[in-house]
């Protein structure tokens, strides 16, 4: 009998984590069920405290399990089946570490680890509200128990490979051997798993009939940080797809991509509509269901990628754990529904509206649009299953469907991004509308006419007319929205400048620091608009494919590519074929690109290494497709992708804006007097108080 100390240690750590989580769940639930959980020396209080500590300890156990798997990867312990199938000796260290989440069992382990880490923070900060935290901790323990049951009994990461120990592993999927793949899954999972926390707080607050909106205030930062992680995770994935997959795009509406987008859409809706509850005590039931749905969509997304219900190039191999997720999803939905109906009288709110033209209305429509987009994505993802069930024949629902349905929705959302902040709470006067909308409208029409005159006229594009129209509309709306946002900043900054005598730039900084939440939100909106500009550039894409022997030339979009040479190379990890291409623009050599095609020994698979030259105007995106077997010349495919870089710049602005919104306001004094004074003095949308 061969000894496997590290895998056994990892398995024990997982079992211990499960035990601790079960204790946290049961002891926590019992202590809450008892009438009093005051911090006194009563049994329930002490029991609740032991539950809290057990929950915190489960993080330590999970860390040990994750460490054991990483250790096994670094020591090439091929007795562990997971390590055998996802690593090899020649794999660089960073990717051996990334192997922790490159397969089904490892990624579930990462999920549970992150959940326990979030739980640790939540339990450590329990003094924010002891009783509500106890509820949230217990609910979180329930989720943790589910994942640990999976890890211990359905998808054990420390399963031993039968037979003699292999000399080398099968290696990591070459597509995952890319720097962003070390960051993308953890970021995405931090977002996915993070939504468990606001979900736990919302469900806990409903269960205990928590008075008022304080739970929203407690979870605001949780939700924003989680949303930020998910945003960054999604776009890291998009950037990885763009840089690695080599088809010239960044988003293919694949079921796995869709699975990450759906909770982002509902989470975004929640972040907006929650303000209605904070400020006006409205939409309580709606908000509860939004966060419930967001959490359930994270579980559904995980189910979609692991059950084999939909086919995807990204999905994990079909396995029985899909059934576990079905069961868990049904249980979660049942608990949410039961709790909601039992406590729905607690969610009664006086939903009133001073005017049809108001911020409240814009929030409602914002939610409508985001949820419509979410439904479209979910519908498109599941329609092949439905079609097969109804008609017996399979269909494909790919990018053309999503683009046709979602682009108009996206344009409407962009429009709301612009007009929403211009409307006042409760009521917006005609005079205020006229004053606030003139500049953005002028910007919109000026941009539209300028584009039609100088850039492109959609009716000349024949088959591509629709995407041209959408693209021009996006640019025009973006101009309007950016003008509106800039005007808001300038208005406030000018008032501050007159008060303090500071420069305009310093006044803008001071303005932001005095009201981080408001102006951070504006910055996020600005980032979203910039991303839309980058996405709209796709309507002007060009591509060309050509055989390129020594000295051959390819011309596209103002660039001239000349093949200097093509050769091959080899190392322990892979063989490579690549071409050296000189790039000329305006008769002048600007760079040399080396697109390559690799063959990885361990996994016996090919991978494309894209050569990309990025400017603010466009990306020159070059792919080495392989050699023509007849001529032995490389086939080179070239894309001109306009404005792509603005997508990534937009994401960076969104990240910055979210950080700004998370930062507390400058001073207490500033919070209580200055912004209020500024808001009184800044000429903006008038609020009609009834």
């Amino acid at each position, binding site marked *: 009998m061969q000894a496997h100390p590290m895998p056994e240690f990892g398995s024990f750590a997982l079992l211990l984590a499960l035990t601790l989580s079960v204790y946290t769940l049961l002891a926590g639930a019992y202590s809450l069920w008892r009438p009093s959980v005051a911090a006194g020396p009563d049994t329930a209080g002490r029991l609740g405290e032991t539950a809290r500590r057990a929950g915190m300890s489960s993080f330590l156990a999970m860390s040990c399990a994750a460490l054991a798997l990483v250790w096994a990867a670094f020591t090439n312990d091929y007795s562990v089946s997971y390590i055998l199938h996802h690593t090899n000796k020649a794999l660089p260290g960073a990717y051996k570490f990334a192997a922790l989440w490159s397969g089904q069992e490892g990624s579930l382990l990462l999920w549970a680890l992150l959940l326990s880490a979030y739980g640790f923070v939540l339990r450590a900060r329990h003094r924010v509200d002891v009783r509500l935290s106890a509820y949230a901790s217990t609910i979180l323990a329930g989720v943790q128990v589910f994942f640990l049951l999976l890890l211990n009994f359905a998808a054990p990461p420390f399963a031993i490979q039968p037979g003699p120990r292999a000399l080398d592993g099968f290696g990591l999927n070459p597509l995952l051997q890319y720097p962003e793949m070390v960051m993308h899954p953890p970021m995405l999972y931090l977002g996915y798993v993070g939504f468990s926390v606001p979900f736990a707080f919302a469900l806990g607050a409903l269960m205990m009939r928590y*008075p*008022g*909106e*304080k739970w929203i*205030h407690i979870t605001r930062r949780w939700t924003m940080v989680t949303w930020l992680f998910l945003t960054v995770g999604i776009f890291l994935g998009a950037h990885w797809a763009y840089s690695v*997959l080599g*088809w*010239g795009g960044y988003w*293919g509406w*694949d079921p796995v991509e869709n699975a990450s987008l759906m909770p982002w859409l509902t989470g975004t809706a929640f972040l907006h509509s929650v303000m209605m509850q*904070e400020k006006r*005590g*409205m939409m309580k039931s709606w908000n509860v269901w939004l966060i419930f749905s967001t959490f359930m969509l994270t579980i559904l997304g995980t189910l979609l990628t692991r059950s084999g219900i939909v*086919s995807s*190039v990204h999905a994990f191999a079909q396995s029985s754990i899909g059934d576990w997720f079905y069961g868990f999803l049904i249980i979660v939905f049942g608990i949410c529904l039961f709790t909601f109906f039992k406590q729905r009288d607690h969610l009664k*709110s006086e*939903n*009133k*509206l*001073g005017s*049809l033209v108001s911020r409240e209305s814009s929030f*409602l*429509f914002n939610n*409508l649009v985001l949820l*419509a987009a979410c*439904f479209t994505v979910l*519908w498109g993802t599941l329609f092949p299953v439905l*079609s097969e069930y109804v*008609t017996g*024949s*399979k*269909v*494909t*629902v*790919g*990018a053309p*469907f999503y683009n046709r*349905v979602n682009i108009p929705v996206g344009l409407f959302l962009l429009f709301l991004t612009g007009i929403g*902040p211009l*409307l*006042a709470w*409760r009521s917006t006067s005609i005079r205020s509308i006229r004053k606030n909308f003139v500049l953005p409208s002028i910007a919109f029409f000026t941009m539209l*006419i300028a584009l*039609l*005159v100088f850039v492109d*006229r959609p009716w*000349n594009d*024949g*088959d591509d007319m629709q995407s041209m129209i959408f693209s021009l509309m996006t640019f025009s709306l973006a101009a309007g929205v950016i003008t509106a946002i800039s005007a808001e900043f300038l208005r406030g900054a000018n008032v501050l400048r007159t008060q303090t005598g500071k420069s305009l730039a310093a006044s803008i900084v001071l303005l932001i620091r005095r*009201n981080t*939440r*408001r102006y951070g939100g504006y910055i996020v909106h600005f980032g979203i608009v910039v991303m839309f500009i980058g996405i709209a550039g796709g309507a002007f894409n060009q591509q060309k494919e050509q055989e390129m022997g020594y000295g051959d030339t390819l011309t596209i979009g103002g660039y001239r590519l000349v093949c200097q040479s093509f050769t091959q190379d080899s190392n322990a990890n892979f063989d490579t074929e690549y071409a050296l291409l000189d790039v000329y623009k305006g008769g002048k050599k600007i760079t040399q690109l080396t697109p390559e095609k690799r063959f990885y020994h361990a996994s016996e698979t*090919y991978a494309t290494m894209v050569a990309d030259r990025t400017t603010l105007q466009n990306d020159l995106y070059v792919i080495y497709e*392989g050699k023509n077997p007849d001529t032995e010349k490389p086939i080179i*495919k070239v894309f001109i992708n306009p404005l792509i870089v603005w997508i990534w710049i937009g994401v960076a602005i969104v990240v910055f804006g979210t950080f700004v919104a998370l930062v507390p306001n400058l001073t207490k004094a500033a*919070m*209580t007097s200055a912004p*209020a004074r500024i808001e009184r003095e800044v000429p903006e949308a008038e609020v009609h*108080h*009834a």
Partner: protein
Amino acid sequence: MRKLFGSRLLQVAVLTCLMVIMLGASGATDPAARFNKLGHEMICTCSCGQILMECNHVGCPVSGPMIEELRNQMLVSGSTNTSILNWFAAKYGATVLASPIRGGFDNVAWIAPLLVFFLATIGTAVVVRVWKMRSTSTPLTASASSHPADQALRDRIRRETEY
């Protein structure tokens, strides 16, 4: 505002702009653009799951011949985009089409999102109207919640987010 738009000068300016914009509006169809568009309406059938024109996996035995078939189909006189896509669907099965466009149950794929969006818009409009009527029947209060601890918190939030 009315005075501004009523001015003859502005009307002339707008008309001139429109004339410049409409110059060269021929509605021509570029065969290369059509070929590219049709190639993006189909999926490579080698099980890579990629759009036909974007299939880039090495030595794909399927995408090349399919692209050649597309070229040939476009040369057939009287062929429309629909007839070409139908030809491919007949040969390779419905999964070759990147979106459900064969009519029948496929239409449900397109109708459902529009219907949901339409109904949700009506629902939202009704909700807004009901809330508006509510607030005209009873005066607006600063807070919907009666919990005293909420007022200070809500005041602070209002200060932090008031636009």
